[in-house]
Structure formats: structure tokens, C-alpha cells
């Protein structure tokens, strides 16, 4: 039992935030996206959590489930810039980040910025490119900057990478290195929509309503400044010491499980707390519940753990292994 609440210091200096308005704005954003991306409410929620927590997302799903539409809709909803890179085996790091080029007319080098200089970057089929090109994203994902010709260039804020990978086609792919995987806040699985959702989706897409929705300005669209304010607000969400303790215990439980080859590291604890705070804000709360931690535990950790050989033989997935681990950890007590 603890009365300690971990709150950031700036809360004491800043005026009290308007949680109601923030919640209403987020609901509007969520509804706008759900109106265009039909039947993927959970995916939308998780992507919004990552956006609010200033994290990156690894999307996994078979082609044709609306991954690109999701990113376009997201960019459209907050008025941000959106770019897409199709990763291929011959893609070079400079194609991603940019490069310095000699301008013969002016007799000087000039920097040509790559597609990473945007707000939302869709790295499509990221595992098709070799490790060298994948690693080009490491710096920009962690430091939010790119070094070209010794010069560090900041990418616009907010910056978010949404990388996709196909779970079925493994031929000719390069699995993402663990260091890079660890930099994704969440790994989101996109599954087929339900029957009702698919009926609505098919009707909307075939009548061109979705495409029109993308072209026109949405009512109540939030600006980049609004989004940055919301991101700042996430840091002010209250976190009780018991909840903090629960999050860390969950992550540490993966290190005691003999069923895992590689457990989650401290970055998972940090990511879990960030995601839980954002999830609380998305659900209109100004404090984190153990339920937020539990809801975010699998998306935060599923790509950071490695299953042991016997679990793989038994057909277990990271999700099922994590579910077992979560069930073995006691929730916070009275």
C-alpha cells in the first residue's frame, strides 16, 4: 500500500492541464480514423498509443489489411506529412536518410534529404532490405536525427516510423536485428476484420467513400501543435508506485521464465510505462491503472522476447508465452 505517486516535476510549475478537452480531442481523432479504417479498432488504439507516447510501431499482417491506409489516415487526421519507403533488397541507406551531392554549378556539396524527413514514415516491408539499410533507421528512430556528411539534421516533430512486415513470406527476407526491434515501442498485429466490419469496409471502399474521406479535410482535425501538447500531457499522467512496481515485475518475470531464450530488457519496462500512460490518456483517465499495464504488456514485449526451442516445437507463440507469464504475476494488491 503506497501513497506515493510518481509525477513529473513540470506538473508543479505548469497550470493544471485540461484533461477533459484532451480526452474529447482524442476521441474525435480516434473516431475519425475508425471511420476510414473500418473494423480495426484495436489496431487504431494501439497505433494512437504509440503516437501519443512518441514511439514507433512495427505492424505485422498479411497484405491488403489496410496498413498504408492506416498511416495515410493518421497523417490526414493531424495534418502531418506522410512518406512511404518500399524496402527492397537493393535499397541503400542513403535512399532512406538522404545524402550529400556535389553541385557542379555552384561548386559545393548540398544535402539532399531522404524520405525520413517527415512526420509519419511508412517503412513498407522493412524486412526485405538487408541489415545495412535497416540499420540506417536506427539513429533516426532513437535520436530523431540523421547524420549526413558529418552534419546532424533533426527530423520534424512529431516523428513516427510505422514499419510493416509480412508474416507469411519469409523467402528472401532479412529478419530485423534485436537492437532495431527493441526500438519499436509496440508490435501491432493486424488480423482480418469481422464479417460485419468487412461488409461495411467493402461497401465503403467500392463506393469510393474511403478515398474521398482521405482527400477532404476532416471535421475537428487536430494540428501538429495539438498533437505535441497531447504528447506532453502523456508525461503528466499519474503513475502510482504500485503500478510502476507491477510493470517492472511483469518485465522481470520474462527473465525468470525458462521458456524464453531471450527475455525483455529494461527498455521494455520504460516502453511499457510510456505506453500505459498513453493508453490511460486515450481512455480518458489522468492516472494509470494496472489494467493499462496489462493491456499494453503483450504489444510492448512480443517483439522483444525470443522463445526457447521447446516452446517453438510446441507451437507456442510469443503472445501465448507472454500470456502465461502475465498470468503468473500477481496484480497490485490493496
Amino acid at each position, binding site marked *: 500500500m503506497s501513497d506515493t505517486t510518481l509525477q513529473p516535476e513540470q506538473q508543479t510549475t505548469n497550470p493544471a492541464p485540461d484533461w477533459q478537452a484532451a480526452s474529447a480531442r482524442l476521441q474525435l481523432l480516434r473516431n475519425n480514423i475508425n471511420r476510414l479504417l473500418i473494423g480495426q479498432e484495436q489496431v487504431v488504439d494501439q497505433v494512437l498509443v504509440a503516437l501519443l507516447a512518441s514511439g514507433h510501431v512495427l505492424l505485422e499482417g498479411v497484405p491488403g489489411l489496410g496498413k498504408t491506409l492506416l498511416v495515410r489516415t493518421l497523417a490526414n487526421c493531424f495534418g502531418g506529412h506522410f512518406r512511404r519507403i518500399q524496402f527492397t533488397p537493393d535499397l541503400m541507406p542513403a535512399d532512406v536518410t538522404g545524402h550529400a551531392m556535389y553541385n557542379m554549378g555552384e561548386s559545393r556539396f548540398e544535402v539532399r534529404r531522404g524520405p525520413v524527413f517527415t512526420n509519419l514514415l511508412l517503412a513498407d516491408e522493412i524486412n526485405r532490405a538487408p541489415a545495412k539499410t535497416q540499420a540506417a533507421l536506427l539513429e533516426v528512430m532513437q535520436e530523431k536525427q540523421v547524420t549526413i556528411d558529418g552534419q546532424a539534421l533533426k527530423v520534424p516533430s512529431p516523428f513516427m516510423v510505422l514499419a510493416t512486415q509480412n508474416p507469411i513470406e519469409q523467402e528472401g527476407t532479412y529478419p530485423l536485428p534485436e537492437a532495431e526491434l527493441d526500438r519499436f515501442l509496440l508490435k501491432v498485429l493486424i488480423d482480418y476484420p469481422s464479417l460485419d466490419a468487412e461488409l461495411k469496409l467493402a461497401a465503403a471502399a467500392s463506393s469510393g467513400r474511403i478515398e474521398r474521406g482521405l482527400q477532404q479535410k476532416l471535421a475537428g482535425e487536430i494540428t501538429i501543435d495539438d498533437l505535441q501538447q497531447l504528447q506532453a500531457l502523456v508525461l503528466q499522467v499519474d503513475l*502510482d508506485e504500485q503500478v510502476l512496481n507491477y510493470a517492472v515485475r511483469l518485465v522481470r518475470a520474462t527473465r525468470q521464465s525458462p521458456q524464453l531464450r531471450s527475455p525483455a530488457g529494461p527498455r521494455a519496462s520504460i516502453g511499457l510505462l510510456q505506453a500505459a500512460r498513453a493508453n490511460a490518456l486515450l481512455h480518458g483517465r489522468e492516472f494509470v491503472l494496472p489494467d493499462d499495464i496489462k493491456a499494453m504488456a503483450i504489444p510492448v514485449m512480443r517483439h522483444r522476447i525470443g522463445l*526457447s526451442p521447446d*516452446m517453438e516445437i510446441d507451437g507456442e507463440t510469443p503472445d501465448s508465452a507472454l500470456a502465461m507469464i502475465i498470468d503468473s504475476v500477481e496484480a497490485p*494488491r*490493496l
Partner: protein
Amino acid sequence: MQVKNLAVRARLRSPWESIDLGIALARRYWWQLFIVWLLPAATLLTLCYWLFPESPMLSGLFIWWLKPVFDRLPLFMISRALFGSPVSVGTALRHFFSPNRRDWFLWLTLRRLSPTRSFDMPITVLEQSGGKARSSRIGVLHRKHSGAATWLTLTLYHIEIFLLAALSMLAFLFIPEQYAEGIEWMPLLQGDTLWLEWLYNALYLLIMAAVAPFYIVSGFCLYIGRRIELEGWDIEIQFRDFLERQQRERRARRRETPGTASLILLCSLALGTMLSAPPPANAETVDTPQQGQERIDEILAGEDFHQMKEISGWRKKEVDEVKEKFPQWLIDFIEWLIDFIEWLFERSPEDTESDSDFEWGPEIAKILELLFWLGLIGGLGYFGWKHREAILNSLQWHSSPKEQQAPPETLFGLDVRQSSLPADVCAEVMRLWASGDKRASLGLLYRATLSHLIEDFAFYFGDHLTEGECAQLVRARQLETEEELRPVSPTLSHFVQELTANWQQLAYAHRPPAEAQVSTLCSQWQEEFGNDR
């Protein structure tokens, strides 16, 4: 060797699953096992090359013959890794002689060509059994997995040969065509070129070292799988977890209410005994341990334990042969069938005289029809017998009563028995609220609610469930009531949701509700549970 430290999940596996697991583990530890197998063998081969440069074939055979010696170190390493105390390559190499002390002579002579070597080796190296103990152990272990172990040996031996042939072909393919044509094959095939034979030895050594980890670890996993099956490690691990959980709860309880700790232990022991023991024999009840001991002594002194019989001379082993007797109805049926067939073919003297008039077609059709019906009845009978359990279950599942679980006494680290609650919960809640201890006040109300939900409504709230999930379970029961469980009314469900929301606000946001809200909750509580006490 501590079973609780086992790095793989202890569960029953078929031999092929065990081999799969072995292959997967061998891939994971391949480098270490390859090195510890290769280094001693390569040292010995180098020594042979130095001492007997003229005898490459014998040297190769010598190394091959010593495989059981080289196999022991990887086995030692993988066994340590699997039981949670891995050793490095250097440490393992320093221990080269210690696993090789026992039974080395027998392994290099009588047992050298044993097809189940990798399966049997752990008995020598890890259990350190020998002589009769080993034989009886082998006898028990071999009852099931020896076939798979033999196939493992055969398969991997063939893989070694295929790899050797493939690598030789690969080397040959690298020889330019103009040189390949000029190669004189006869001296090479007759073994006149020493360097080539030494090269072959080195190549085969590498192949043996590469395949050995898969062979050793797969055999070891077969052995582990068999022991899990024989000794019930999976059950043992579950009991250990159960005991640990009980001890943890006991420690937590000791902090809360020391008096009830012994009760939990007693319950856990009773539960453990119930789970592990066979159905009760309903023996006479005794009041004290002394009386029990006297009764045991009395039984042991009885005639059943003092019968002596001397038998000498050779005789056939007495085996309890179960002579299957055909049931009378079957015999009757077959007799009837024989009579029927005889009747079918029975012909009158007139018929015998006029054979040309007899029509075979309808008779054969009758027999075929009979056979068809017999086949159908037999097939249905066989199907019913084979799936009898599933059919019985599907017929009985409605009527089988669900075992009532005893309600837990602790939850969320707190005593949730109704007897632990104050006589007047609401009065105590309001008293604590007035005294300023708001957390304790609302906590008591929440605990009292949980207590009633568990004992009156048979809810099961696991340790891992959060308050929100408990509230969801209540809501789910309200929406979909199971027949055998007490239904939850909408007002109770609403009350639980509201109380949970208020409790979460207080516990995690440190924002207590207004006093009026607490008194409303108290009156709602009184309405829901006030009459239960």
C-alpha cells in the same frame, strides 16, 4: 540435478517430439558441443598422425571406435545446461577425464556397437550406475524409447556417410576438368596415397564432430522424456509450484493474521494428499497416532506378511495369462450363423437330382447381404467401442455435477473470509472514513464485497486479476448466467462497477470520493449483502 531447474518444459513427449527437442537444443548449443567433441578427438588424431603416419586407416578406425569417449563431454555440458548450471567450453575440457572414469572399458568393447548408445549413455555418465543397477534401469527405460533411439543412431550414421560422400563430391567438382581427366583412380581407390587417406580422416573427423551434438542431445532428450514419464517430473514440478505458492501465501498471512497460517498449510497438505493419493481405502478410523501405529504393527504381524514358500528346480516362468473367453452369446450367435448357412445351402433330394435347375445367383446375393449387414453392425459396434468415452461424455456432460471449489481465504494478500470482517461493515467503514483513514475505509468496503462475491456467489478471482478484471467478471455473470452458479443482479453488478471505479480512483490516483458517495456505496452494500450475515 534439480528437477525444478529444468530449462525445458517438463511434459510428456512422444519419442519423436523428444528427438525434435534434442535437435532444436543441439542447434542452440552446437558450437560449444562441436568444440568439446572435436578438440580431444583432433588431438588424438594428430598424435596418431605423428606416431603412425603409415597407418591412416587404422588411425581413422581407432578414432571412430573411441566415439563413446568423446561423446561424454558434450553430454556432461548439455546436462548441466539443461538443469540451469551451464559450463563453459574451457571448464568442460578441464573435466575431460572425470565423466570418462566409469565403465569406459565396457563402452569400448561390449557396448561399442550398441544402437541405443546416446540413450543409454546418461545412465553411466549422469546416474553413474553400473552392473545390475544399470541393467535393471536400462530394462525399464528401454520399454518404450529404445526403438526411436535405434532409428536415431541409424539415421545419423547414414547422415555422416552422406555428408562424407557429398563433401568428397564437392571437392571433386572443384578440380578443373582438364586435370580431372588425368587422375589415376586405381591408386586412390586402393589406398596407395597416404595423404589422401589422412585428408579423409580429417574430413570424417569434422563430420563426426558436426553430427555428434545432434546425436548426443537427441539421445539425452529421449532419456529425459522417458524419466519425465516414469518419475512424473511434470507432476513434481507442479507440486513444487503449489507448495511455493502456499508458502508465499503463508508468509503473507503471517504478516496479516498469524493464527490462520497453520490452517492454510493443513488445507494445502490435505489438498496435496487428495490429489496424489489413490481413492481412500476407508480403513478403520483411529483417534491417535499411537493407536494408528499399533494397528499397523498388528497388520504387519498378521499371517499375510509371514508366509514362506521354498521353490527349487527349473520351471517355466509364471505369467498371468489372461485367457479371453468368448462370451456365450457370441458362441450362440456363431452356432446360429453356421446353422443358417447350412440351411441356406441345404437342398432337398429333388434339388440334388436336378442340379441344372439350381440358381446360384440369389444364394450368393443372400450371403453377400448377410456379410454386408454383419460388417455394418460390426463396424458400428467397433466405432461405438472406440469412441465410447467421447459418446458417454457427450451424453452425460449435462448431468455431471461440477465439483465445488472451496472459496479461497486470501486474495490480493488479504483475508477475504467473511469471518474476518467486522460485524457491522458499514459502521466500521464510516468510522474509518470519519477518522481520516480513507484508504482503509474504502479498502474495507471493497474487501467485504469481494469476500461476499467469493463465498456467496462462488466467484474465482485469480491472483493475476486486476480490480477492473474482477469487476468485468461480475458484469459477465450478470449478462450470461451459468446454470449452476448463482446469478448476479443488475443492481449488484452496477454496485461492483461503481465501487471498483471509486476504489481505483482512490488507490491509483489518490483522489478519494466525496463522503456522500461513500455513504451511498455503504447503503448499496447493505442492500446487497446486509441480509447475508
